[in-house]
């Protein structure tokens, strides 16, 4: 029971962080049709900016300022980079973001070095929020959950209760129609791109010190956010939310399961030889692969994702 509840909490915390990262990506992907390979790079920039700002002004300021800076940067990239590439079609856009990811990584190398930086959890968050049975739950994880849920609510209100949200929603499923109705779609694109990258930046601010701030952090989460978008379904924030939590929980729970192919065969009365390394692989060892397995399965059996609004 203790293991189950703690794993659930860990899974949800991780899932919420994933959602913060992928919500921006899924908005950009579905509105503009751009698979933004550099999305995780904005996550990394968020962490590095927060580290830099927190050394001068403290963590509180970093939490507010770093996502805004990242968002502004994202908007500039869209306005002066992506929009130019857009004229030459989707392949050009894809290549542009692909190159951008490498560019950001090299810039981080040059500015902050190739090693990790000392971006720490502030002291006032260093402690135990509550103790469940005998396992303590750190304050910072609670804070991460709070920020994620707060962001989720704000995003929901923005998309369903405001005029701009209405247009964004319309553009998610029928971008051409929205343009035909006379809305300034390029400007909306810029806003969405800036907003999406700001969310990635925010995830970086709170993920960077919870884990580790290093130049490889973008590549480490880069592929998993695509899994979230694909599994959740195009254009569906709710889908991205469900997929994030699902993947977060799959990753945490699978670590706890020591069940191997040998055990499975034993259930059916088949005794496998001990020598085969594959037969001895446990679910724990497979944990890092499972999200990708899920993505492949979804693409085969339900190409539009769990809650996808459209096929392409």
């Amino acid at each position, binding site marked *: 029971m*203790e*293991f189950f509840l*703690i*794993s659930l909490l*860990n*899974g949800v915390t*991780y899932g919420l962080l994933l959602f913060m990262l992928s919500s921006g990506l899924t908005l950009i992907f579905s509105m503009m049709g751009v698979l933004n390979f550099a999305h995780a790079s904005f996550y990394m920039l968020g962490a590095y900016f927060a580290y830099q700002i927190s050394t001068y002004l403290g963590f509180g300021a970093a939490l507010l300022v770093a996502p805004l800076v990242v968002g502004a940067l994202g908007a500039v990239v869209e306005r002066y980079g992506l929009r130019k590439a857009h004229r030459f079609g989707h392949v050009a856009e894809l290549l542009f973001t692909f190159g951008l990811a490498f560019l950001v990584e090299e810039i981080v*190398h040059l500015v902050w070095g*190739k*090693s*990790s930086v*000392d971006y720490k959890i502030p002291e006032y968050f260093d402690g*135990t929020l509550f*103790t469940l049975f*005998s*396992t*303590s*739950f*750190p304050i*910072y*994880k609670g804070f991460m959950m709070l920020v994620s849920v707060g962001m989720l609510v704000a995003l929901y209100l923005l998309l369903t209760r405001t005029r701009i949200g209405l247009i964004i929603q319309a553009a998610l499923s029928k971008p051409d129609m929205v343009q035909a109705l006379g809305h300034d779609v390029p400007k909306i694109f810029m806003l969405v791109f800036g907003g999406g990258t700001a969310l990635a930046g925010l995830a970086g601010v709170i993920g960077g010190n*919870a*884990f*580790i701030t*290093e*130049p*490889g*952090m973008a590549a*480490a989460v880069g592929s998993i956010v695509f899994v979230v978008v694909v599994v959740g379904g195009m254009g569906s924030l709710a889908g991205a939310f469900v997929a994030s939590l699902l993947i977060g929980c799959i*990753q*945490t*729970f699978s*670590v*706890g399961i*020591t069940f191997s192919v040998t055990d499975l065969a034993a259930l059916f009365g088949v005794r496998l030889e001990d020598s085969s390394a594959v037969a001895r692989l446990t679910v*724990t*060892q497979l*944990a*890092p692969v499972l999200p990708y397995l899920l993505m492949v399965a979804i693409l085969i059996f339900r190409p539009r994702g769990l809650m996808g609004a459209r096929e392409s």
Partner: protein
Amino acid sequence: MTHRIRSTVAVGALLLAGSAFAQVKIAYIDPLSGPFANVGEAGLKGFREIADTINAKGGANGQKIEFVPFDNKGSPQESLINFKAVTDQGIRFITQGNGSGVAHALVDAVNKWNARNPDKTVLYLNYAAVDPTLTNDKCSFWHFRFDANSDMKMEAITNFMEKDKSIKKVFIIGQDYAHGHQVAKAAKAMLAKKRPDVQIVGEDLHPIGRTKDFAPYIAKIKAAGADTVITGNWGNDLSLLIKAAKDAGLKAKFHTYYAGGLGTPAAMGPAGEGLVLQLTEWHMNVQPNKAEAFATAFNKKYPGVEFYYLRVNTMMLMLAEAMNKAKSTDPKQVALTLEDMRFEADNGEVWMRKSDHQMIQPLYISIFSKVDGKAVKHEVEHTGHGFKTLASITARDSQLPTTCIMERP
């Protein structure tokens, strides 16, 4: 234009004047980017510092020692590309430590290169890759290891655990590559012999350098009811593991190889007190501590990094002595002098065993404790805590037999 040529000539002349000494170049092949960059950078600083000390005293066989860093990104493939560059540049000595996978690739490459180029041989000095096979089945005349191998370390740790009757349930966690597998294998085999009453309640391998959130593993360790955890993890894989244990309030003892530095003490803070142990050839509070002055000066010079690798000093001092004795910097001559060498290092007398090129040195088991001014004089990483010696293992006692049948040139 003429002005520029003149200044170029002047600079060139200066450079020539600077290298009036011939130089012994040593290639440092280790991760300088990626998840283990901090470990690679700390190692390089250690090497450069001791090289400066040796150079200030006249160098090795009258020549200055210079380190040439190569970033292998922690990968065996990259290391082989690095090795190609090393031989292209005519560098005759290489050193590496982080990752036994890399070590295996390099030993193979060095063996092949030396067989084909007997006049341009390369010597491989291993300061930290601890897979036992490197000095057993896969031993090579061109490879010298200055760190106790994984089995020697586990032997010392399990000897210590044998006496601790409070240990009932043990969990083994490690990185999923040669080293992690070896640690788990040795721990199980040795515990079964020394403490058959101890139950192994779990065994996990996680991807190396890619796990950032160890909370699920800690939940599993806790659910298994382990009172002791054995891990061979290093770098961020250890810091993050211990940090997650701290966050979840896990009160198990951690028997580690590498908890003494590179961010781990800072990550655990006071929560690690009395719970985290390490096995090393030296730590800042050993008695007598002959490296105290060197370590203090090092820590002052490089804020953010603490002196950790005493064996790096031992290795470089032995290398310099071997070059002086052989009156040569030829790798083969140096290797022949280095094998069977006995040397008075800062942690006592050490011996480079001739049969397998495994260095035999004293080892210490120490525990993370509050600074008390007596047994724990020095803190690590500004935690107010340092390491306290619980057991000393003499060089003689740390030995294990080898299966090495060495082919000599």
